[in-house]
């Protein structure tokens, strides 16, 4: 372990902006990709449920006729 304090760790020998900028961008992009996938999952789930509902309604309609 070569960091004597947290502030020394965060300053990264004066290169903090470049290093944390790099890792921050990586985190935002990969995290953003995961979030987009979660959103897509919710949207897909909703549209599947809508279709199921539509199907049962149609079935009911057919039997009623």
């Amino acid at each position, binding site marked *: *372990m*070569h*960091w004597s304090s947290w502030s020394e*760790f965060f300053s*990264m*020998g*004066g*290169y903090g902006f*470049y*290093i944390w*900028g*790099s*890792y921050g*961008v*990586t985190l935002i*992009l*990969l995290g953003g*990709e*995961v979030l987009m*996938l979660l959103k*897509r*999952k919710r949207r*897909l789930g909703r549209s*599947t449920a809508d*279709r199921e509902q539509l199907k049962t309604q149609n079935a009911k309609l057919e039997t009623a006729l």
Partner: protein
Amino acid sequence: MSNRRINWYKYAAPANFYPLAGKMIPWFTVITIALFVVGLYVGFFVAPTDFQQGESYRIIFIHVPAAWMGMFLYVLMAVYAGVGWAFNARLASMMATAISTTGAIFTFISLVTGSLWGRPAWGVYWVWDARMTSTLILMFLYIGFISLQSSIDDPRRADRAGAVLALVGLINVPIIYFSVQWWNTLHQGATITARSFKMAPSMKWAMLILLAACWMYSIAVVLVRVRFIILEREREAPWLAEVAA
């Protein structure tokens, strides 16, 4: 040995692949998180300060894996797209589409982190040297592939058009790889060559563990995405109602 064989063709069918991928995703997710934690720990708390570049070199732990993933995933995408086109295998084409977004993201990360490293190392964020220009072209190829596919309504036609673009663009990958040898570039040479490894062991391990983490991450997100693509494209198929229920 037993003569029991795994029938690999079985998993070329979306109906068989979909549940298998679903079972694999949690494992790859767990391995991804573990490798990121270990790799970042080694990179920030074990690897020593570089005698030439000070702490700024620590960008390498994410920059090099991201750049490699950008190239690997492009080759993988082109191979899947080519197989999907040549053998009319729709799952392979769906894999190519699923890979393209992740490949573009890693290529973008390699450009941004490289730029943030270039400023302290060279004094500039960007120069039009061969390595950086060819990586930028790789980014445009990904963007071209994604926008071409999304502009065509018929999925199989979109797959074929994307395959042509991906295969033609494949020529760019060896250009990126050998650019530091073929031209005089500001960018440093290959970090790892067959003969030498100019780094302390802990630096090397941090980089390799994070490379493995990026691989596992890519597999996990691509499997998640390819399942969504299957759901969207084959929603009328009877097998889907059984599996998804």
